C-alpha cells in the first residue's frame, strides 16, 4: 500500500463514488426527515413537524407486524441453516470439479432470477392446482386440495429457498477454511464420520454458522415480494405494510418511519453479530 506516493489523480477515482455515496445518504436523510412530518390524509402533501408517527408505532396493529416479521425471519434463518449446512459441506468436500460447479450454479440461480420470478414459482408449487396439490390429487392421496398458500408456513418455505444461496455461501466459506488435518487426525484416532462432524467440523465452523444464521435473519427482515405474493395480504411483514401505507393510503411519513425503524433494527442485529464474532475470534476461532 502506497500512502506516501498518492497519485494526483486520486480524487478523480473517488469522486464518482463519493457522489453515489452522497445520493444514498440523501435518500436516507429524506426518510429521516419525513418520519417527523405530519401526514395529511388524502393528499401527498406533508404537514408540520410532529412525533405522532413514532407514537403510532406503539399501536398493536403495527407492533404485531414487527413481531410477525421477526418470527418469520427467525424461522427462515433456522430452516436455512438446517438445509444449507449439508449443501455447504457437499460443496466444499466434493471432489468432482464439475459436480461442484453444478451444485453451486443450481444453488445460486434463485438468487439471481429476481424476486418476482422466484416468488411466482412458489404460487405454482403451492396453488390449489399446483405441484403439491396436483401430485397428491393425482396419486389419490387426498380428495380435495389443501389451502397451502397465504400462510406463514408458505412464506417461510419460499423465503428459505431465497436464503439458501446466501447461507450456503457463508457456510461454505467457513467450512473451506477448516484445516482438514484436524479431521484427518480425528479419523486416525478412530472417530467415525458422524463423530468427526459433531466434534470437529461443526464446532470449527461455528463462526460461519453464527454469521450465516444471523445474516439470513437480518436479510429476511427486508423481504417484500415473497410475503406480498405468497402471503396474499394475509401474511404481512414490515415491507408490505410500508408499501400499503405509501401507495394505498399515501401516508408516506409513517411509511418512512417504519422503513427507518426496520433499517435500524437490522443494523442493530448485524452490529450484535459483529460483536459476537469478535468475541469468538478472541477465544481462538478464526475465519
Amino acid at each position, binding site marked *: 500500500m502506497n500512502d506516501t506516493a498518492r497519485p494526483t489523480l486520486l480524487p478523480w477515482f473517488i469522486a464518482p463514488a463519493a457522489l453515489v455515496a452522497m445520493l444514498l445518504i440523501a435518500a436516507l436523510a429524506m426518510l429521516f426527515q419525513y418520519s417527523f412530518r405530519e401526514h395529511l390524509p388524502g393528499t401527498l402533501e406533508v404537514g408540520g413537524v410532529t412525533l405522532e408517527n413514532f407514537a403510532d408505532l406503539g399501536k398493536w396493529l403495527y407492533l404485531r407486524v414487527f413481531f410477525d416479521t421477526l418470527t418469520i425471519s427467525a424461522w427462515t434463518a433456522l430452516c436455512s441453516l438446517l438445509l444449507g449446512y449439508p449443501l455447504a459441506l457437499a460443496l466444499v468436500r466434493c471432489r468432482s470439479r464439475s459436480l461442484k460447479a453444478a451444485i453451486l450454479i443450481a444453488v445460486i440461480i434463485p438468487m439471481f432470477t429476481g424476486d418476482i420470478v422466484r416468488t411466482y414459482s412458489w404460487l405454482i408449487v403451492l396453488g390449489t392446482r399446483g*405441484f403439491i396439490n396436483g401430485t397428491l390429487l393425482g396419486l389419490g392421496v387426498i380428495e380435495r386440495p389443501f389451502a397451502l398458500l397465504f400462510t406463514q408456513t408458505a412464506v417461510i418455505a419460499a423465503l428459505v429457498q431465497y436464503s439458501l444461496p446466501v447461507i450456503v455461501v457463508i457456510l461454505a*466459506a467457513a467450512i473451506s477454511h477448516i484445516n482438514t488435518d484436524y479431521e484427518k487426525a480425528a479419523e486416525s484416532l478412530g472417530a467415525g464420520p458422524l463423530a468427526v462432524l459433531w466434534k470437529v467440523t461443526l464446532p470449527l465452523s461455528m463462526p460461519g454458522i453464527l454469521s450465516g444464521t444471523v445474516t439470513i435473519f437480518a436479510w429476511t427482515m427486508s423481504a417484500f415480494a415473497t410475503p406480498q405474493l405468497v402471503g396474499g395480504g394475509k401474511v404481512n411483514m414490515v415491507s408490505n405494510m410500508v408499501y400499503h401505507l405509501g401507495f394505498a393510503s399515501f401516508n408516506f411519513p409513517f411509511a418512512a418511519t417504519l422503513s427507518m425503524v426496520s433499517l435500524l433494527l437490522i443494523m442493530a442485529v448485524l452490529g450484535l453479530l459483529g460483536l459476537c464474532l469478535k468475541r469468538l475470534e478472541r477465544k481462538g476461532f478464526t475465519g
Partner: protein
Amino acid sequence: MTMADRIAKPAFIALVAVALAFVTLPSVVVVIVAFGEKSIMMFPPDAWSLRWFERALTYPDFRKGMVNGLYVSAWASLLSVAVGTLAAYAIDRFAFKGRALLEAILLSPLVIPHFTLGVGLLLLASTFGLARGYSVVVLCHLILVVPFVMRSVYVSLKNIDPMLERAAASLGAPPLTVFLRIHLPLLAPGLAGGWLFAFILSFNEFTATLFVTNNTTQTLPVAMYNYVREYADPTMAALSALLILATALFLIIANRFLGLDRILSIESHR
C-alpha cells in the same frame, strides 16, 4: 464404525439431494406448467401448448417492460462498473481520509432493505422534481449494484501479482500508467464478470424498482407483478421459464470470466 456411521454417508447424500430438489423444484415446476394448454395454471398440465410463450413475448406491457429493463440495466451496470472499479481500486491501493467511511457507505446497500431505499429515493426524487423518470431508476439500481462490482474488483485485485506493479514502477511508470497499462488489462475478466452480475441483478430487481417506477418506466419484473395481480393464466409461467433460462445462461458465462467459487471464496483448502 457404528451402525449410525454406516448410514451416515448415504443419509448425507440423500439430505443434500433433498435440499437441492427444494432449491430447484419451483423452477422446474414453472417450466412444466408453462407448456400447459388450459388457461388456468395446473400441474401436471393435461394438454400441451406453446401459446403462452407466444403471449408472453407479444404482450405489450411485457415488451415495454423488457425495453425499459434493458435500458435501465445497461446504464446502471455500465455506470456501476466505472464507478465501482475506480472506487474499489482507490480504496484497495491507497489510504486517504474518509476511506473507511466511503467504503462502508458504498457497501451498505447489501444490508439496507430494498424497500427502505426505494421509499427514500422516491421521496428524494419527488422533492427535487425528478418524479419517477428513468434517471431515478438508473440511480437506484446503480446504488444497489455497486457493492457487487466492488467485491468483484477486490477479488480480482487480490489475484494480481504485486511484483508486476513493482516492476512497472521500478521502470519509471507513474501510478496512473500502472493502473491503465498493468492493472486494467489484468482486471478485465473480473470486470466482465462483475458487469454481468450487475446487469443480471439490475434487470431482475423488483422491490426497490416497484417504488421508484411508474407505468411509463416500469421494468419487466414490475410489469410481471402487475400482470399477476390481474390474470392467473400460464403466461407468467412462460415468461418466468424464459427468464430462468436466460439467467442460468448468463451465470454460466459469468462463471467462466470470474469463477463464482472464487468471488464467493469457497475453494477447498486441501
